[in-house]
C-alpha cells in the first residue's frame, strides 16, 4: 500500500482499514491546510515529494512506532499536489484496545514524519508564493 496519494483523503476509510475487533480506541490526526502561516495569509499549498524515498521514510516511522507500541495499528496517508484551505494534507489513524497508547503513537508518528520525510510545501497567498522552511 502506498502512503502517498494525489486524491482527497477519506480519513474514516483509513481508520477502518486498521481497526481490529479488539480495538476500543481510534485516534485520527488530520493535518489540514489553514489560512495563515507565520502571520501570512495562505490560499493554497502545493506539496512536492521525493516519492519513493518519502514512501520509505514514512514506512520507517510507522514500523518504528509500531515497535514501540506493539498493541497499536497504524495507517498513514499523505496527499500531494495542490491543496486548498480546509483540505486534509495528511491523515494518521492509530487504533488500540485502550486509548492511551493510541494517543501516544499518533503524536509520535506525526512528530517524526514532519522531521524526516522528504516532502515540501509551497504556500500561495495574496502576496505571492514561497517554499516553506528554507530561509535565505
Amino acid at each position: 500500500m502506498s502512503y502517498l496519494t494525489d486524491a482527497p483523503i477519506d480519513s474514516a476509510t483509513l481508520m477502518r482499514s486498521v481497526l481490529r475487533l479488539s480495538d476500543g480506541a481510534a485516534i485520527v490526526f488530520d493535518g489540514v491546510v489553514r489560512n495563515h502561516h507565520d502571520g501570512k495569509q495562505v490560499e493554497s499549498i502545493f506539496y512536492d515529494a521525493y516519492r519513493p524515498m518519502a514512501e520509505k521514510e514514512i514506512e520507517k516511522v510507522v514500523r518504528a512506532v509500531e515497535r514501540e507500541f506493539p498493541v497499536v495499528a497504524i495507517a498513514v496517508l499523505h496527499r500531494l499536489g495542490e491543496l486548498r484551505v480546509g483540505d486534509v494534507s495528511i491523515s494518521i489513524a492509530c487504533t488500540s484496545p485502550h486509548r492511551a497508547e493510541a494517543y501516544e503513537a499518533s503524536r509520535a508518528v506525526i512528530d517524526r514524519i514532519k522531521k524526516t520525510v522528504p516532502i515540501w510545501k509551497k504556500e500561495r497567498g495574496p502576496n505571492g508564493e514561497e517554499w516553506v522552511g528554507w530561509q535565505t
Partner: protein
Amino acid sequence: MKVRLLLFAVLRDITGKSEAELSLADGTRAADVWQLMLRDYPRLAGYSQPPLIAVNENYAAPDTLLREGDELAFIPPVAGG
C-alpha cells in the same frame, strides 16, 4: 562516472530542472556536488544551511563516496504533514 541528480521543490524552481545527469570524477563525494551547485547557481549560497543529502533514496553523510549509477538528491528542510 555518471550520477543521476534529482531536484525537488525550491531546488527545482531555482535550477529550472527536475533532474540532471552528472559526469563526475571517480572519488567525488556527495558534498562536492553541492559545491558544483553553488558555483552554477550562486543564489543557493544565500540559504542558511546546506541541504541534507540522499543517495539511492536513503539519507547519506556528506562525505559519502559516489559510485557509477547512483541517484543523488539534495533534501532542503522538509515540511510534510
